């Protein structure tokens, strides 16, 4: 997806892939993998109160596709192989928390679901205001059945030079797996129906 013609004015894009081979002495085979795709964009409403946040909703739809596709590509898997997902945003100090909400909630989910195929479950999210290098813990849940306990997780993302005061950092995280060593019971992925997004 070309970034030039987007409404979103992107300063930088970043992807982070974590590949966990071993945890507390136990081999993880195959390794569990998660990828974050991150965009640092200009906040069109920085420094002023705007009642209408339509522009950020358009940006949310664009980033659902761009970051969803980049995160899946970073894992090198087919969209259908994605097992869990999450999203988050950090708004620089001249913006407001509602700017993150306008990007994340109205229109980002549809394109993200297209990028991961299906996605019956709510996309877990987190947001906050922050300065350069602020870390954000992006919550993760199974993409088709929110109650799958093995896939409750989070991934920390941060970029040392963002967000500046007039910027917003937007992140989408996808995985090909749950936690490395799940053993606290609950609904298992293999038992999930994936129809109502919950079980």
């Amino acid at each position, binding site marked *: 997806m070309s970034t030039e013609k987007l409404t979103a004015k992107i300063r930088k*894009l*970043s992807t982070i892939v974590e590949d966990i081979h071993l945890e507390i002495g136990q081999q993880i085979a195959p390794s569990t993998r998660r990828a974050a795709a991150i965009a640092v964009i200009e906040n069109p409403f920085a420094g002023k109160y705007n009642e209408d946040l339509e522009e950020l909703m358009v940006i949310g739809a664009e980033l659902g596709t761009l970051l969803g596709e980049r995160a899946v590509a970073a894992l090198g898997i087919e969209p259908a192989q994605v097992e869990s997902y999450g999203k988050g945003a950090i708004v620089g100090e001249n913006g407001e928390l509602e700017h993150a909400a306008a990007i994340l909630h109205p229109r980002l989910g549809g394109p993200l679901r297209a990028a991961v195929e299906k996605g019956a479950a709510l996309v877990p999210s987190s947001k906050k205001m922050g300065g350069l290098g602020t870390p954000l813990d992006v919550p993760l849940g199974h993409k088709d059945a929110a109650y799958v306990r093995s896939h409750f997780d989070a991934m920390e993302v941060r970029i040392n030079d963002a967000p500046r005061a007039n910027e917003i950092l937007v992140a989408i995280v996808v995985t090909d797996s749950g936690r490395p060593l799940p053993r606290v019971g609950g609904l298992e992925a293999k038992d999930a129906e994936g129809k109502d997004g919950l079980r």
Partner: protein
Amino acid sequence: MPEVIVRKTITTVEDIFHEGGPRAEKPYRRGAIASVIKNPYAGRYVEEITPFIEDLKPLGLKMAQDLIAAMGENSATIEGYGKGAIVGAGGELEHGALWHAPGGYSMREVVKDSKAIVASTKKVGPVGARLDVPVTHANASYVRSHFDSIEVGINDAPRADEMLVILVMTTGPRVHSRSGGLLASEIKGEDGLK
């Protein structure tokens, strides 16, 4: 000889389009790869540690190749590089120094024109420590446009008995490079310096 035990790998790729100035036609791309490995010498003083250098060489080579692939680049399009290590609390700085040869020579093996010394930094740090890994031009250390650094770290490492070993690569000058000095187009590429 100690075995190299990798707990996790973290790969980061950044595309920088601008930093307040004109948008770059081709973004400046920076990549970092970090392996969280067990420190075989943690928790005690060991005099003879050099055998681990040999053990680390295959890992270094694989990391260099994997990083170029993750960046979607090839041996000819990488222009800058650097390396670093973060040693967990049970180790000593000298353990990080074991990465100099396997980290550096692996990149020089896979990056086409790479006569320059690989810039490096290292420290002992807690879980979540971040390291600013220096970057210089791969073929001529004095190229001013390519001086940079990439911050690398992960929230759950290094544990006390672990080390992060890190390689970084870039594809060109800083996105708005305009501080003069030797240009990449002017280098002789003979001595690794100019």
